[in-house]
């Protein structure tokens, strides 16, 4: 692979320190076995899962055969990924025994342990309320998220990250185009095509799309893309946006600049097509985060970028800007009023179980007389796993960002750009969690757990790579045979 390809087509930065020179050299001279130019099956399986996430409405599909916990298509695919990981030689050694930061995985395990403890330590009450089965389902979902993250961590090498990032930009751009079509025509291509393809094995629920604001919620259209809710679709797009934005900042050719700028603009337009405030707030937070590390580049791009983006969004999703910037709607809508009451109304639950909460996965949205939809994942976590669990949850999201800091500040451009882009995705999810109950829609957390894994891999650079044990054992056996033959 050429230096430019691996280095993310980045502007050559002055490399001064020997260690950074070595890193850049290693990144540049890596073998060509990198996604998509690889025959390793695991990265391709991950790519398949990501394609499913971006194009198939997994939350609205019920398979015609059943699992003990759930019959959603993503659960089956995650089980398939785990089996493939075991069969094809997925190797935790690729993560555990390398330079890759362990902070994120430790944080995730701590959160999982606290979630289990929150359930088991108060299991009598939870069973009495009939919430145990619900909690089991939520644990299965959390297990799917963590398994996917582990899969990504152990299946990918540093050299794969750039290819996966390009792939994600492509998927998100196509998804954004689909959502713009949905906004304009009311035709949800994701639901329709999935229904046509999966008919023999699954039932696909009808799309909740409604492009007439009068029939949507609070004068807003209902545009959902491949998800059940516009917020989930927006979250997916905003977590990929920084990948394109960082490439715009680093572009060394006009073609690269234009392609990534167009992808970024389409993602913004697609997100805004949902009429959700999240589509405005999260990109702002992501841009501020990137500006923290690249202030000059962002400031230079900002004036022109804002004008062009406004034009594109206005053209692509007419009316979206007006709805999002409608101050009356922003301050007086039922959605805003409901959010204001979130914490006060959930306070009794928090104060009744302050340390470990009322039990992970025990908030039942189908019992409106008992539980609120809190529009804020942090409040949900506070209620379910208490203050300790909330701290672990926040740390789990921020751990990749923290572990990427050093890599972002390093002068090895290939590593710095990838670490910045992926960690910005994590920052996006961090903000998303403050704006709605993100774990309630599977696509958003799936994306986060993949992006968090990418951040950990990118932050470690090529030094984090290791030959999988199976391959290593094969080589050693060959060497031993050769030694015996020679003797």
């Amino acid at each position, binding site marked *: 692979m050429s230096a430019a390809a691996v280095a993310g087509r980045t502007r050559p930065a002055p490399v001064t320190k*020997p260690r950074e020179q070595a890193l850049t050299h290693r990144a540049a001279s890596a073998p060509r076995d990198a996604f998509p130019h690889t025959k390793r099956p695991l990265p391709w399986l991950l790519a398949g899962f990501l394609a499913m996430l971006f194009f198939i409405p997994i939350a609205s599909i019920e398979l015609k055969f059943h699992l003990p916990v759930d019959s959603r298509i993503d659960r089956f695919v995650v089980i398939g990924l785990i089996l493939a990981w075991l069969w094809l030689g997925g190797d*935790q050694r690729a993560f555990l025994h390398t330079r890759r930061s362990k902070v994120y995985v430790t944080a995730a395990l701590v959160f999982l342990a606290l979630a289990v403890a929150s359930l*088991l330590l108060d299991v009598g009450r939870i069973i009495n309320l009939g919430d145990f089965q619900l909690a089991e389902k939520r644990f299965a979902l959390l297990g799917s998220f963590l398994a996917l993250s582990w899969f990504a961590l*152990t299946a990918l090498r540093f050299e794969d990250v750039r290819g996966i990032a390009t792939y994600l930009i492509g998927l998100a751009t196509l998804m954004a185009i689909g959502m713009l079509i949905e906004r304009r025509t009311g035709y949800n291509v994701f639901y329709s095509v999935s229904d046509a393809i999966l008919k023999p094995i699954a039932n696909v629920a009808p799309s909740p799309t409604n492009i007439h604001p009068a029939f949507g919620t609070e004068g807003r259209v209902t545009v959902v893309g491949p998800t059940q809710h516009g917020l989930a679709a927006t979250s997916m797009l905003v977590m990929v946006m920084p990948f394109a934005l960082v490439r715009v900042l680093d572009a060394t050719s006009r073609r690269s600049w234009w392609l990534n700028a167009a992808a970024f603009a389409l993602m913004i337009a697609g997100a805004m097509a949902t009429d959700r405030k999240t589509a405005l707030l999260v990109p702002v937070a992501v841009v501020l985060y990137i500006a923290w590390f690249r202030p000059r580049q962002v400031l230079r791009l900002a004036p022109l970028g804002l004008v062009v983006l406004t034009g594109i969004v206005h053209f692509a999703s007419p009316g979206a800007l007006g709805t999002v910037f409608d101050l009356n709607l922003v301050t007086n809508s039922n959605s805003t009023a409901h959010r204001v009451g979130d914490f006060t109304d*959930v306070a*009794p*639950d928090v104060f009744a179980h302050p340390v470990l909460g009322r039990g992970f996965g025990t908030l039942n949205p189908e019992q409106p007389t008992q*539980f609120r939809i809190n529009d804020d994942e942090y409040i949900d976590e506070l209620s379910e796993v208490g203050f300790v669990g909330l701290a672990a949850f926040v740390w789990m999201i921020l751990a990749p960002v923290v572990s990427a800091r050093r890599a972002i500040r390093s002068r090895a451009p290939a590593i710095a750009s990838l670490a910045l882009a992926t960690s910005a995705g994590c920052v996006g999810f961090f903000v998303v969690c403050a704006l709605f109950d993100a774990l309630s829609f599977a696509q958003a957390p799936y994306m986060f757990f993949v992006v968090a894994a990418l951040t950990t891999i990118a932050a470690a650079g090529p030094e984090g790579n290791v*030959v999988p044990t199976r391959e290593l054992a094969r080589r*050693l056996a060959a060497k031993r045979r050769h030694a015996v033959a020679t003797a």
Partner: protein
Amino acid sequence: MGFALSIRVLLRHRWLMAVGVLVAAAAAILSVYRVDGSTLKARSLQYSSATTQALVDSPTSVLGDLSQSFEPLSARATVYANFMASPAVLALIGQQVGLSGEQLYATGPVSASQPRVVQEPTALKRNTEITGETDPYRLSFESQPNLPTINVYAQAPTTALAVGLANGAVVGLKQYITALEAADKTPARARVTIRQLGPANGAVVDGGISKELAILVFVGVFLLWCILLLAASRFREVWRGSALLQDWDEHSSDEDGHRGKLGDDASEAPLNGHGDSETHLLGTPSRQEDDDPAMPVRSLL
């Protein structure tokens, strides 16, 4: 293969694994039993539920009389369903199964036609709900708009109690209304009649929950133990490696003034495992492994 390597690492600590099994077994037992003095008593994790229906009727039943309207009775059913959650009626219901009214937790109907925001509990309402979350005897009353019926849902530790509670709810309401009518000397023709639409039926809801929970706890605790063991084992290796690294660093410093400073690529090698076959355990980056034909097989472990 990495999975197999982990199992090998765990098998090297057979005694600690045995302790892990014991700890997990103890946790599993304590999840379904509680210590009471010197004995173990089963926790009441299993519960049953039962349901029945009551018809709010007139002395000459509306079911067979076309001249009578359901509407006034439907409105009454809604009122009664709410009223049945009051302490006065709960005391009468409790009497039927030998419990006091305070031992019962009951909720009245909520109109499903109301928007979700209205149905969601306020802090004050939630406070009350939380106080009843641990009550094992629970009742819920529902009424459908335009229907003169009350659905009674009961929950109790045993099926017999749950059925008794559901039946008792209808009897309690009947007694209360009759007492009220007698006290007010309501004419017989104007009296409300509560008819139970068949006896309550119920069943165990979560049969086998104790076994399921014990297995879950055992597996969870044992897995956690294994993870801790692997982490501790790995830490011990790194700790030993770091000691060797320190020795190596000091040795190089003696030999060549400043060449052995930590932080250079070369000096990081032992922590990663290259260069020293004794300390090399699992972390050799690919490029070095390619160039090291003498690397021992045991380094995989």
